[in-house]
């Protein structure tokens, strides 16, 4: 099968407009006859389900949590980008498009990214109309801040809880449609199999996690809005339940997996504290607006950070990247932190951390402004700290509280200790311009697809993509498929394809339960995570990746011999749910390593030690690797397909933030 990205012809700035005015439509009466399954209720899923129901489609939505409001989009902290240019600082759709392509290290698809930038402005309007309480200025207008990889202020936010507020907006829209009877909601349900009939996605098998029963659900189309797969690393900033299962079942049913090795390691997370650690907690990128990152100039310096004088501190991001300073993109900031720690300059007990310090801006940026407002001339340090602290508290209060709660240290007094952690996956199911996977009728939205962020995502762009896909893209593009399906009557779930898919799912569950070994699911997940982090994490090499592949294969074989799952199938059994997810991670991990191994270059978050510049920056190989790797599942192996990337509107260059 050849990959058809179905990018519309024409100038990049006109493609989406022209597409919208020429795409086939489904009339309102026919919409009421068409059923759509939406799996996942984060920003992409909730917004898609709500919007499609508003348009008249019959929607069934599924989430594994106890309520759609719990999806992990809720935890996004810092903000959402939009090219509103409210700050009059030279922003535009083109600039957001350009920043995103460059930020992704020239490995994203131009047409999709431009569309994303175009939709960004409508997202803010939509959210405000829903009653999302964004931060505002005294004049009543919306407030903005900066995020990494940009030189404008285009990030809209609600304290450090932007994801929560946006998701609750989308969730309220979804619940409105539930109340109106246009969406049927299935919480505590997990998709465990795709149902295909005549090559098209026609439904899913879902497992009721309370009763353990398998259910058959028909749909004219299936939308996977199931998030990313960062939990393959065991420790990540993802929620405990975040998983790849739905996407992986789709992959095994024929959907190609795009750029699986492109993972984002976020530079500012609370460091690991012990072997019992279950997850890592992010400290928002927005903190880098006011926090300065540094390590001591002396190796193994054990002094308290407040006792290290200014001239003995190395503000290494400001030193190495003067143009962007502390606001370099995530991949660059993460690698720089690793470089300093590996060289022996790390801080804290484990020496695997760097400082994120707010004192300077608390005093000099905010303290001075507040003192000036109060007509205090020549304020002393104590006054500056007191006044500045209030401003910092308003901007980041919940994050500072969270940090203190976890570490027992007060970041208003002592710099935060931070270290990179797995946060987001740019890779995902390969989709065309319509967001359709290689299985007709099956779509992937939000983090679950690969399309917009290339090899590195810029901060505050995940919320933008999730909502763009759900509110504004899929409602249009799905017409291209469903307009041809208006004669398809709902297919009975007694159809042999449903029976067969249910049997496959059931056999797999039986197989897991019958192993009856001695090791916990958790212990396998932890071991897999360690392999992935050490050999397919921030730095990768041919040797390490080859070792990792062998280790994962051995671990997987052992899992199917020795795992122990307590309880039974037909009851609420979280260990069984987890076993199914870890089984899929044990396959995905291998593909990620296979993908990282074939990409003999460094780009964005994918850093191969063999391919770097003299200054230690990522060294791309555009001549040979300017493509999306799309992997087809072949049972025991994978076949690589390539989508060549063409840059007609952006001049490709060595990515520099110096």
């Amino acid at each position: 099968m050849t990959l058809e990205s179905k990018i519309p012809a024409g100038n990049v700035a006109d493609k989406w407009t022209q597409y919208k005015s020429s795409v086939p439509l489904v009339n309102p009466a026919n919409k009421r006859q068409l059923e759509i399954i939406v799996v996942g209720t984060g920003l992409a899923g909730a917004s898609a389900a709500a919007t499609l129901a508003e348009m008249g489609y019959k929607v069934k939505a599924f989430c594994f949590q106890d309520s759609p409001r719990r999806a992990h989009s809720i935890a996004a902290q810092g903000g959402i980008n939009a090219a509103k240019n409210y700050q009059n600082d030279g922003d535009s759709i083109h600039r957001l498009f350009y920043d995103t392509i460059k930020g992704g290290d020239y490995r994203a698809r131009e047409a999709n990214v431009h569309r994303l930038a175009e939709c960004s402005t409508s997202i803010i309007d939509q959210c405000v109309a829903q009653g999302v309480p964004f931060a505002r200025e005294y004049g009543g207008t919306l407030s903005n801040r900066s995020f990494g990889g940009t030189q404008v202020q285009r990030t809209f936010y609600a304290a450090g809880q932007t994801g929560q507020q946006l998701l609750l907006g989308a969730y309220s829209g979804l619940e409105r449609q539930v109340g109106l009877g246009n969406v049927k909601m299935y919480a505590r349900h997990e998709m465990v199999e795709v149902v295909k009939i005549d090559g098209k996605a026609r439904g899913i098998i879902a497992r009721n996690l309370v009763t353990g029963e398998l259910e058959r659900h028909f749909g004219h189309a299936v939308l996977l809005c199931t998030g990313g797969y960062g939990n393959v690393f065991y420790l990540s900033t993802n929620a405990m339940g975040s998983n790849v299962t739905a996407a992986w079942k789709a992959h095994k049913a024929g959907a190609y997996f795009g750029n699986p090795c492109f993972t984002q390691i976020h530079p500012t997370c609370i460091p690991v504290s012990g072997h019992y650690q279950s997850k890592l907690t992010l400290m928002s990128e927005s903190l880098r607006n006011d926090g300065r990152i540094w390590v001591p100039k002396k190796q193994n310096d054990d002094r308290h950070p407040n006792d290290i004088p200014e001239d003995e501190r190395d503000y290494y991001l400001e030193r190495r990247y003067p143009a962007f300073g502390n606001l370099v993109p995530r991949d660059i900031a993460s690698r720089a932190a690793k470089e300093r720690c590996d060289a022996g300059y790390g801080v804290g007990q484990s020496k695997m951390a760097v400082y994120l310090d707010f004192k300077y801006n608390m005093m000099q940026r905010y303290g001075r402004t507040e003192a000036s407002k109060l007509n205090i001339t020549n304020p002393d340090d104590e006054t500056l700290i007191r006044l500045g602290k209030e401003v910092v508290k308003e901007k980041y209060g919940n994050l500072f509280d969270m940090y203190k709660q976890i570490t027992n240290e007060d970041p208003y007094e002592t710099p935060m200790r931070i270290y990179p952690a797995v946060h987001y996956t740019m890779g995902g199911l390969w989709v065309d311009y319509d967001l359709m996977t290689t299985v007709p009728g099956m779509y992937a939205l939000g983090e679950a697809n690969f399309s917009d962020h290339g090899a590195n995502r810029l901060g505050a762009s995940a919320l933008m993509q999730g909502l763009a896909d759900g509110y504004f893209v899929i409602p249009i593009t799905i017409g291209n498929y469903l307009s041809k399906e208006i004669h398809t009557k709902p297919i009975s779930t007694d159809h042999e394809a449903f029976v067969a898919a249910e049997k496959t799912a059931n056999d797999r569950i039986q197989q897991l339960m019958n192993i009856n070994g001695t090791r916990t699911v958790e212990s396998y997940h932890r071991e897999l995570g360690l392999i992935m982090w050490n050999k397919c994490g921030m730095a990768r090499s041919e040797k390490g990746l080859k070792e990792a592949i062998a280790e994962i294969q051995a671990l997987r074989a052992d899992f199917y011999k020795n795992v122990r799952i307590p309880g039974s199938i037909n009851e609420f059994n979280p260990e069984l749910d987890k076993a199914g997810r870890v089984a899929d991670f044990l396959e995905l991990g291998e593909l990620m390593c296979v993908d990282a191994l074939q990409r003999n270059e460094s780009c964005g978050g994918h850093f191969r030690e063999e391919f770097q510049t003299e200054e230690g920056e990522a060294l791309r190989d555009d001549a040979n690797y300017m493509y999306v790797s799309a992997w087809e599942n072949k049972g025991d192996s994978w076949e690589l397909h390539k989508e060549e990337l063409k840059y007609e509107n952006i001049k490709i260059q060595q990515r520099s933030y110096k």
Partner: protein
Amino acid sequence: MSKLMKLNLKVWRQKNAESAGNFEEYKIDASPDMSFLEMFDVLNEQLIETGKEPVAFDHDCREGICGMCSMVIDGRPHGPKQGVTTCQLHMRSFNDGDTITVEPWRANGFPVIKDLTVNRSAFDRIIASGGFVSTNAGNAVDANSILVPKEIADEAFEAATCIGCGACVSACKNASAMLFVGAKVTQLAMLPQGQPERQSRVVAMVNQMDAEGFGACTNTGACAAECPKQIPLSVIATLNREYISAKMNGK
């Protein structure tokens, strides 16, 4: 590495909604730097390794924002610390040798599914009854065309930070959901976008709240005291005011 603490746990075990349930006792060594849920992870691994059934409990983000975790710890929803969810509670809040009692949310509106896991879908149905602004995607005007004073936006935001965990219901002797409903009603009543449906919303949400079997409010304030997001008690006053006003207008 901090020194391990020896703890005794009394944990509510209940096979399913129909069975009676009882407390089981466990001994565990915990690091002060562990979160409360990480201690339960360790307990569950021990139980599985010794051929016993692990304790079922709800949790997901472990960052205090998804609202999924829900344990009554020593009689208090989310435990002894103020403004903190169970997942953000750390063992350093306890002492070596402590006995800690852990139960599920207890309310008619939240039936137990298993052990410490309850069904909170009643909250979703309350939101579905009116906790939204009826606006379809594509309808919106430019975001800055309607100005909202900062103080109003900040107050709406404060109410909007509710995570829907249900601690308020669990803390209340009447199992009232007034803090939860009041938070959403307040958020939308304050903002210009919430005005057109202001009165129908509050009536619909209160009716649904009553239909779900949540109790009445007797102003003890336990809900706000235990709320991990510190939603103020004033949202209940707002809820009452909005409700009476709507009723007087014949809604």
